[in-house]
């Protein structure tokens, strides 16, 4: 058993935030690989993969509007490339669940928010804020900026580097 990541007080607070603020359901799609106690030379180590699945599942217990899909990249070859994350694991992709309740198509989504590496430190608050924004459709930009970005005809890849402390 894993120790909970969140204290009971934090869980209560998050439950309240999610209950008050979540509207549409949001899916957290985790791409991860099983941890191995063996060190295999040349194999990419995944520093936080062992914690990633219990972390995401614990978070999702706090609201029935949070869904979890877990992909093990060792068991599903090509799934990381399919979702465009390659070796950057663990990856948590945030996806708005279709209004009509249609199932998980597994189709790669553009226009995505993705957390690469475990967002358990300072950017945990970013993850919570992004879940709420995605669920409600809230965008924290001025109207002219939103209009300009809606008209973008080229792909834009924003990579925001952060650290846990």
């Amino acid at each position: 058993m894993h120790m909970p990541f969140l204290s009971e007080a934090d869980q209560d607070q998050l439950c309240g935030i999610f209950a008050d603020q979540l509207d549409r359901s949001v899916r957290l799609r985790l791409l991860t690989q099983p941890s191995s106690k063996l060190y295999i030379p040349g194999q990419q180590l995944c520093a936080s993969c062992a914690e990633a699945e219990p972390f995401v599942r614990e978070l999702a217990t706090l609201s029935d509007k949070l869904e979890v899909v877990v992909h093990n990249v060792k068991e599903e070859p090509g799934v990381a490339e399919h979702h465009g994350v390659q070796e950057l694991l663990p990856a948590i992709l945030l996806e708005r669940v279709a209004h009509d309740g249609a199932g998980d198509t597994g189709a790669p989504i553009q226009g995505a928010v993705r957390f690469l590496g475990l967002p358990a430190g300072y950017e945990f608050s970013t993850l919570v804020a992004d879940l709420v924004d995605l669920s409600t459709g809230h965008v924290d930009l001025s109207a002219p900026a939103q209009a300009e970005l809606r008209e973008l005809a080229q792909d834009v890849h924003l990579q925001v580097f952060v650290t846990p402390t």
Partner: protein
Amino acid sequence: MAQLNRRITADVIEANEFPELSQRFNVMGVPKTVINATQELVGAQPEARLLAAIRAATARIVGQEDPSAATSPTDKGHPT
């Protein structure tokens, strides 16, 4: 922002977990935002600066320039 347009993908990257990627973009301070591997912003920036960087990053594609010819000021190539 990524909600506005399916062309926008926003990654939040734990820099310590991906040292090679962080080194490639010479991440010395956080938050650091890299746009299409060519434009860089350090620190929290006002909306106007972010939009200007996005315009600059996408203008390269519009201008039909070879993206590989665009050199980032921090691109020092592979260390070895």
